[in-house]
């Protein structure tokens, strides 16, 4: 099945003159005009930090591949791969400050990892052991909120939290180390949801210290982005009264710089910003999907030539990184993936009565009654509770 002939490619592509790019697809330093104002931020990165960005991307790609394999081995119900979107996620996640609040959708595995979430907690969600996975209030998790599966809903939650930061004076003081900001991740498909629109309305109205980070990975399962919008998605933000920047989402340096500037401007009290990171979902929507039914291998190959890790690898080599460095990164990536695989196979069951435990915060008579009835019922069998 071929993509519909009627699909009009959106105006916003990586060739758009407004797009911020620093690294060309071949890894050479070739800043676009729109990137000029961000070069200072890029230059301020140390070599170690730059190598760290590469390392982050390689590790998560290995983990992501392993998670897909785990699903194919019957260990997970589902896995939504982040393959191809490493640069947009690593760049933006490294741009956030420790005090910031992160609202992912459900594909931001490296964002969660960078903020401190143990990847096994994401695995637990996909294995059917929990709906949440981790505690956002635990300092180890870096204020990362849990995945939201209803598209776009988290944008409103993020805006609400941003409003709370404004009311409590936790932003806008000018102290970059203390002022808090919110970054919320969503995709091109979600951008059509009403909640995203309302989130931007409220964010602009209350001038929240917030960055709306849209990863346009070109596909909402099998529906191309052209069906979501006839106009570049980054232009929507302007309509709400917030600065809006398109960035090459496969360029980790540009993603980093644009997000950093946006977050710092927002936290300083200048109101919300929107970023459209142009990237590509190189894998399927999830392990249940079959992209061969709706997109061409030509298209996939054209994006493979723009691979975020390959361009960064070329860039680092040109800067003098040696085989030892790359081998070390590879080895660490394999170790992380293997660790995830082993720990997944060792995950046990959850107690069956846990379904009653957190329905309400305060004690609730019906829950008490039903849990007791459930427990009695389960124990009433001769072979005991199963």
């Amino acid at each position, binding site marked *: 099945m071929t993509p519909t002939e009627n699909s009009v490619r959106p105006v916003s592509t990586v060739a758009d003159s407004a797009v911020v790019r620093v690294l060309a697809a071949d890894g050479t330093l070739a800043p676009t005009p729109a990137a000029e104002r961000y070069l200072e931020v890029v230059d301020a990165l140390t070599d170690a930090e730059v190598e760290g960005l590469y390392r982050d991307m390689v590790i998560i790609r290995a983990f992501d591949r392993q998670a897909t394999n785990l699903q194919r081995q*019957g*260990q997970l*119900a589902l896995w939504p791969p982040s393959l191809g979107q490493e640069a947009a996620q690593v760049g933006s996640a490294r741009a956030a400050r420790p005090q910031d609040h992160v609202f992912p959708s459900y594909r931001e595995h490296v964002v969660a990892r960078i903020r401190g979430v143990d990847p096994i907690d994401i695995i637990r969600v996909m294995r*059917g052991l929990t709906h949440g996975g981790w505690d956002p209030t635990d300092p180890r998790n870096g204020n990362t909120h849990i995945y939201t599966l209803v598209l776009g809903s988290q944008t409103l939650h993020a805006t609400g939290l941003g409003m709370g930061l404004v009311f409590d004076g936790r932003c806008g003081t000018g102290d970059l180390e203390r002022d808090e900001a919110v970054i919320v991740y969503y995709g091109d498909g979600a951008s059509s949801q009403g909640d995203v629109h309302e989130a931007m309305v409220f964010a602009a109205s209350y001038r929240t210290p917030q960055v709306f980070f849209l990863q346009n990975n070109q596909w909402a399962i099998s529906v191309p982005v052209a069906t979501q919008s006839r106009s570049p998605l980054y232009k929507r933000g302007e309509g709400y009264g917030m600065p809006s920047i398109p960035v090459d989402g496969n360029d980790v340096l540009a993603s980093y710089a644009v997000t950093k500037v946006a977050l710092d401007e927002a936290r300083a009290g200048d109101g919300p910003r929107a970023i459209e990171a142009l990237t590509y979902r190189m894998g399927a929507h999830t392990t*249940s999907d079959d992209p061969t039914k709706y997109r061409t291998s030509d298209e996939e190959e054209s994006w493979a030539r723009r691979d975020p890790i390959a361009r960064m690898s070329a860039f680092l080599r040109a800067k003098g990184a040696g085989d030892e460095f790359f081998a070390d990164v590879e080895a660490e990536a394999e170790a992380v993936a293997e660790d995830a*695989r*082993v720990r997944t196979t060792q995950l046990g069951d959850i107690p069956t009565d846990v379904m009653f435990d957190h329905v309400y915060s305060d004690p609730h008579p019906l829950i008490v009654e039903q849990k007791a009835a459930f427990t009695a019922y389960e124990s009433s069998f001769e072979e005991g509770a199963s």
Partner: protein
Amino acid sequence: MSPQTFLLPDVGEGLTEAEIVQWRVAPGDTVAVNDVLVEIETAKSLVELPSPFSGAVGELLAAEGETVNVGAPIITIVPSTQGTDAAAGPDVVGQSEHGEPADPEGGSVLVGYGSAGHVQSRRRKPAVTAHERVEASVGVVAKPPIRKLARDLAVDLAAVVPSGAAGEVTREDVVRHASQASVFRNIETPAWPGVREETIPVAASPAPPAATAPRPAPEVAEEREESIPVRGVRKATATAMTSSAYSAPHVTVWTDVDATRTMELVRRLKTSPDFADVKVSPLLIMARAVIWAVRRTPMVNAAWIDTENGAEIRVRHYVNLGIAAATPRGLLVPNIKDAQDLSLRELARALERLTLTAREGRSTVADQHGGTVTITNIGVFGMDAGTPIINPGEAGIVALGTIRQKPWVVDGEVRPRYVTTVAGSFDHRVVDGDGMSRFIADVASILEEPALLLD
């Protein structure tokens, strides 16, 4: 090292099977974790399956082109001798059939439900525990259909003794109460004017005691004659009747009496809280009257005994009061032991219990043994009086007739009163004419003026 088995997983959220398209390995090949083993095709797409184990391929358990159910084993791999893998996981990985954990001890995967749904058979349960006692509500515990039945049969639920496991009134309780009422309630005893008393519908065909009509005559006489073998209770009854009738010279005396005050007393007792949970009827007063009268004419409560040394009359100074009862088994005469010691209320209880027991055919031999004097209630059949046969071993039997309104002279005027006949048959060897008349007169006196019982 034992081989590890890979079961076909559900790769697409609810798939039940897949076709083996192409094996990428052969038996004997060395494979590492995540190496592609096979390409399968599901309803949704083509999928490559990566190996969960490393080692040497053992057996391919499904052929290319074959469709395999989720959970079926597809390949075995003999693990390598290196230690890293051995600690990595259990021996069986993947989706097992029907969703059971592949290796319960290994704590491995349970994802999806496989082909046949996941309920194999019903888990075994021990027997259901006994009913809890139903929370006592004010009033009667009875299910709606039973309430309706009670209403239809005009049974007062509050008067029914409940026998349900949870303390509720059952259908059988209601039916028994209704039929008992139609036998042991005088069907001609009407409601006292002004009293809200339930009306007992006349039973369609009140079952007469087995002694007089063993069973209904066939509707169509197939033959001109029918032979019924005499056995069991019928035989015993016949024997008893014969021996009694032909050994004791029976004399029957009777009198009519104005029982209006008894009817009044019965009504008052019925509405008294002390008698709320117990049956009260004219039979109760008659029973009390007989006990009272027996004290004044002890010879009625005696028996003619033939011994080797000649005959003797044994006078009993206790009253085991027999009540002739028509039961499913036939005519029985169970008795209330030491009835003379019972208060009115206790006597009512005893009568009720005896009645229920007899109706259920549960009267024991002991119940029927040792009677000293008997009452037979022929009023239920609408009879005024009769010539009852004495129960063997006794000297007297009293018949309570129907109580109905008749003209009576009161203070020189003819007025409707509740009138009944009290009759009794006596063994003339034991009781003389004077005695039997006085006895019957005494019983009648009580019925006329129950207050005499205070004496």
